[in-house]
């Protein structure tokens, strides 16, 4: 009856294979996006000025990352002048020695894609004042951070911890008029950091257009 015995060991082997596969499958569904309160993922990227920057370059400074797509109505809402909401935030960040990095993760051919020339044109024509515009057409940095929408905001402390991940403000709409009555989460988080307090609202649901990944 060796046949039967072989069948038994075959059965054991296959059961193990099924269990392993199921386990791997379940494990792979867990998202790898960073959690607030933990170190922000290290990245490096090429800017519209042609420099290569990495997160480590800004150790000791607060960093704000803004995912953007100039064609998206939600981004347009915050760049509309007046009230120039995003530009105002960028200017006050620059004044406070906070590093503002705009990231464009739109793939080539998709809405919002920009090469260096177009990215610089956009900055000039909108009166924007980011410290850097990172061109991430491969979507590597976007997926590393789990950026879902434009805009989607992240704040990183001088010691490299991610402390805010989410929407720019509390009114999920594309209407410029809503900016005035919304509470701005980025301003609030920066105020908390300034006061030496933990960020009161570290995670919100970002709203906007889906990032136009490849």
């Amino acid at each position, binding site marked *: 009856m060796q046949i039967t015995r072989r069948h038994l060991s075959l059965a054991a082997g296959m059961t193990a*294979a099924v269990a392993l596969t199921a386990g791997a499958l379940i494990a792979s*569904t867990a998202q790898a996006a960073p*959690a607030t309160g933990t170190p922000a993922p290290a990245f490096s990227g090429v800017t519209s000025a042609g420099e290569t920057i990495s997160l480590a370059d800004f150790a000791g400074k607060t960093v704000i990352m803004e995912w953007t797509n100039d064609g998206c109505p*939600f981004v347009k809402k915050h760049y509309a002048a007046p009230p120039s909401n995003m530009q105002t935030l960028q200017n006050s960040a620059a004044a406070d020695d906070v590093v503002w990095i705009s990231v464009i993760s739109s793939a080539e051919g998709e809405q919002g894609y920009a090469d260096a020339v177009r990215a610089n044109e956009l900055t000039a024509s909108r009166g924007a004042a980011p410290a850097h515009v990172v061109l991430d057409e491969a979507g590597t940095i976007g997926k590393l951070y789990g950026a879902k929408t434009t805009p989607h905001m992240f704040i990183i402390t001088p010691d490299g911890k991610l402390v805010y991940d989410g929407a720019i403000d509390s009114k999920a709409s594309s209407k410029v008029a809503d900016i005035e009555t919304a509470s701005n989460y980025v301003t609030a988080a920066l105020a908390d950091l300034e006061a030496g307090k933990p960020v009161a609202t570290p995670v919100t649901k970002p709203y906007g257009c889906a990032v136009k990944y490849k």
Partner: protein
Amino acid sequence: MIRAYRALMLALTGLALLGPVAAAQAADARRAEAELISERTSVIPGETVFVALKMTMDPGWHIYWRNAGDAGLPPQLILKDSASIAEDALGEMMWPLPKLLPVVDGEIMDYGYDDEAVFALALTVPVDAVGEVRIEAVADYLICESICIPETADVSLVLPVGEAVENVPAGELIGAWIAKVPGSFEGEARIDDAAAPWTLSLSLAGGFPEGAGIRFFPFEHEISHPADQPQRFGPNGASLLLTPDRAGQVGDALEGIIRVDAPGAEPVGYVIRAERGEALAGTADAAFVPVAGVGEVAGLSWQGLLSLAGFAFLGGLILNLMPCVLPVLSMKALGMVSAAASGHAGELRSHGLWYTGGLLVSFAALALVILAVRQATGFATLGFQLQHAPTVAVLALIMFAVGLWLMGFFELGSSITNTGSGLASRGGAVGAFSTGVLAAVVGAPCVGPFLGAALGAVMSQPAPAVMAVFLAMGFGMALPFLVLSFVPGLHRVLPKPGKWMDTLKQFFAFPMFLTAAWLLSVLADLAGAGAVGWTLAGATALGFAVWIGRGAGPVRRGAAIAALIAAFALPAVQANVPAGKAGGEPSVPAYAEAAWSPSQVDALLAEGRPVFVDFTASWCASCQVNKLTTLSSKRVKAAFEAADVAFLVADFTQKDPAIADELKRRGRAGVPMYLWYPAGTSEPQILPELLTQELVIGLVEGR
């Protein structure tokens, strides 16, 4: 693409500059048409009617569900000051069952609608309404293709106040979309969030349909929207694995809807509220199966197909151990013992290849048959062979015949167990090929219970995907023996042939007979005792054919063939006669439902039974709401049954003078109308147009 987009932006900017003059043209440039429709063209004060926001999207563009998912915004209907009604006269927007809108695989998932969506709202006509009811509103929505555009549209609806006049086409449309609004879940839901991934368990009496795919759509953002939701089934329901969002936490309960996609059926939605706690018993007995394609607009992704094929492959491997397959494979093993003994490694190899070929061809044929059935009927469930009585009868007879053969009652010419001489190369190839075919034929019934969910998911997929999954399963089934035939070290440990092989072969007849007995019990469920009797008679004819076919001569051979044909044909024909029991789930309502007529009401009242009359029509949206929320709910059905209520339906879909008279007699302009005759009364109570379960159950229980 970029050029087109720039042109579009230029055009939009230009329009914005031109201002109001261009407004009419801007409306034409919209990607959706928004319209307010009503089930009435004229209304009476105090009544509740259904109006709806009807959205027709351009091809490729979509709008969003109440929870848009990772990106997007739900549409809104904002009442203008110029409307003649107060804001609270319009009820909440009713959200039909959404689809998954995968934006970036594994990264961004949205929920919404494409093509057309109708959002119904209950309008309570003010009691003091005179002249007309004027709804003037703005439909404010975000519409997306690969890019998103916020659009607004002025919509209005004017309803004269006077008599109730139906708008039949609009009522039909609104009713059909209300039927798509997720109803209340008649089971229990529980969320176990002790560890990630969370387990959402759903218990449902009678279970979910076979081969169903289930997807949870949350109202909020507790879970990662793009993550797969592997599902498994148990006798009492199903469970899903949910991946929490980064900051995801369950408050008191996790709320949302589940969308159930069963093969060949319209998708159904249920609103669930899952309290925190341990998983419900009996909802997770089988292995987790990743489900792809549930409610997705796009087809199965490559990854989804690959994982499905991977599972099918594993399933094929495991099929080797199924009781209905193992005996056949053992015959195969016996053949290999012979080949090993004769020392022809090359033959052993070609044997393995032929066997694999036989299996693959059979699985391909099975896939083609399923595709053909799906094409012909628009419907195919897995294990459908076992729901078709003639197929079951013939399978039982084949099992019986194989048992007879294993017992040695007759020999087959190219038998692979012809152990005396080694394998003739030709006979070996044919024998191996047909063993492959045989393994597939007897193995197929085992496929259903084992991989029902995974194959159910693939059933709604394009033909190549179905074929790929079936071939993967066939290859999985063939692999162990293919490996045995190619690895010399393995077949050397095969035992030496001897008399024990005959004994073993005979022993394997008994699992075959047992399988036949089980198939007979399935047949009894499907087609009744008569069909079982005919199949047993067929088995007798089979025995007779074997007995008489042993001798030589044309007469005997002719008789054997005739008996053989009769053995299979008669049970198949008899089993096809419909019996009292159908193959599917019994869908008879718990209480008796009959057509309404005044004399029927009198007769039932004379019997002393309470009577409930439902005056309804397919174009009546309110009627569908009441059916959905109240009349078809299990609680109400149970209450009706307990009180022996006669449930009569007066269907006014086609104008019926008797029904029209009755409506007029009760002072009603139209349907819905609900009449309740308590036992022992002759005059009914007229119930409100909008029913609740509490109201109806209270009446029935005499509270």
